[in-house]
């Protein structure tokens, strides 16, 4: 402990030293700066006001509520109510307007486009791409080729209930894993692969047995994809005669599709988004280019 008797007056500054001394180096014992001290006291006073206004002190069973009754839960509810009030009549109008009638009202049209575009970026773009262009395994939404239908009603249903998920209203169909489950042999899969590729005019390797492929197709695939292979939107069976291939048109891709099946899924967005947002999304997707 410092010995007060060691305190010396520092002749240069006029302050006393603390009494500590290391090889002739001593520490000045200066008071705290006044400005600092006053801010310190002001903070203490402020905290007293804070205790009174906001929830603060824990008591036996609950805490003091503060005179303004602030609460984080009611605060966020109020902020969201304010947000809805700010968006105001347009959201209300959108919720009451049929999707087909939105385009007749230029102001509502602009609003719905913006509203749908924001919801699309947050919820849909991770799979379908920022512009709706899709990717391998994630359908393109800007062309006019639809798996489950491109009418407003069909798009609305697909967005609201999704595809192959746990929702009881979800779109559902399941292609068998023809190779994995032993329905077709490797040779049969190769034949039907080349037959299916030939349907959309893709060049097939010399010596492919397209007749055998056609027979295998008629026996195994036509029940869903149709005798003419043009698919069936009722059961999400894709059209195999066009140049659009969700999982790729190269021979290994098609073989993999037939061997293991794909059966990808999409969430049911009605479980996460409100009806007005779903409506804006439906309009937005329908308007991306391929809506029927």
């Amino acid at each position: 402990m410092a010995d007060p008797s060691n305190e010396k007056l520092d002749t240069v500054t006029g302050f006393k030293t603390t009494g500590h001394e290391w090889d002739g180096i001593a520490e000045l014992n200066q008071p705290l700066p006044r400005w600092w001290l006053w801010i310190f006291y002001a903070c203490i006073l402020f905290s007293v006001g804070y205790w009174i206004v906001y929830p603060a002190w824990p008591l036996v069973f609950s805490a003091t509520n503060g005179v303004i009754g602030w609460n984080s839960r009611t605060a966020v509810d109020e902020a969201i109510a304010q947000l809805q009030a700010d968006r105001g009549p347009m959201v209300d109008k959108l919720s009451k307007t049929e999707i087909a009638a939105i385009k007749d009202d230029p102001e509502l049209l602009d609003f719905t486009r913006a509203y749908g575009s924001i919801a699309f970026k947050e919820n849909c773009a991770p799979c379908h791409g920022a512009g709706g262009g899709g990717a391998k395994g994630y359908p393109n939404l800007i062309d006019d080729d639809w798996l489950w239908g491109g009418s407003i009603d069909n798009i609305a249903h697909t967005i609201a209930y999704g595809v192959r998920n746990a929702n009881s209203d979800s779109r559902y169909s399941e292609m068998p894993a023809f190779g994995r489950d032993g329905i077709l042999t490797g040779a049969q899969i190769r034949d039907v692969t080349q037959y299916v590729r030939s349907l959309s005019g893709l060049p097939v390797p010399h010596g492919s047995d397209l007749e055998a492929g056609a027979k295998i197709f008629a026996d195994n695939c036509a029940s869903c994809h149709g005798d003419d292979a043009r698919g069936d939107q009722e059961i999400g069976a894709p059209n195999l005669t066009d140049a659009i291939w969700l999982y790729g048109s190269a021979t290994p891709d098609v073989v993999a599709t037939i061997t293991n099946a794909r059966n990808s899924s999409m969430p049911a967005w009605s479980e996460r988004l409100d009806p007005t947002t779903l409506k804006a999304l439906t309009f937005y997707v329908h308007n991306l280019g391929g809506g029927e």
Partner: protein
Amino acid sequence: MSAWAKHQILETNAILLMIGALIVISIGGIVEIVPLFYLKNTIETVDGVRPYTPLELAGRNIYVREGCYNCHSQMVRPLRDEVERYGHYSLAAESMYDRPFQWGSKRTGPDLARVGGKYSDTWHLDHLNDPRSVIPASIMPSYRWLAETELDITYLDEDLMVQKALGVPYTDEMIENAKRDAVIQGTLDPVEADDLLARYPNANIRDFTGTVTASGRLTEADALIAYLQSLGTAIDFNLYDDNANIR
């Protein structure tokens, strides 16, 4: 001798100063922390929250191992913009079985508290393998090895025992069946799913990577996706009353 002069005794004696500081900090800590254990409005029991299934717990261990929390938080704060983007704000009860919690404070990537069910399993697998294949502007690293590495469930039952020792209510039955439950949930052996669902209501039971059925083995990606798909899905917010606990 004034009070200031007495304060000098503390200032000039390191041990005394340390003891004094410890006492002051303890008082602050006790006043701030202890009431959280008994005040009614800080303890909220909510229907639907259950301990993680063994497969989800294994996925959670991978989440922690890979340091996902360095970039992803798991807490939607009760603020307008967060609720707008991510959904209902997080409740304390939702992480009551997290040892340790994964709230985080750093959002280089988005919050994951409500990511369960938001994307398909295929998307998660593609995204873990190569984030830029689905999000072109993503700066997340690739975690390609997760789908290539077989999940090690050797110590899964012991993981549950550790969690139990820390206060998660795993029963002896759950611990005994831990490895089996992981295998069932990943559909490596999709029998006795009813038993699993009885122990862990609403658990997702499926082939998360789509490769388990063909390859006959669970990968780390299966566990991680099972965990991610469970996040934030425990509570039905159509039934939950925000204001019931305000008192």
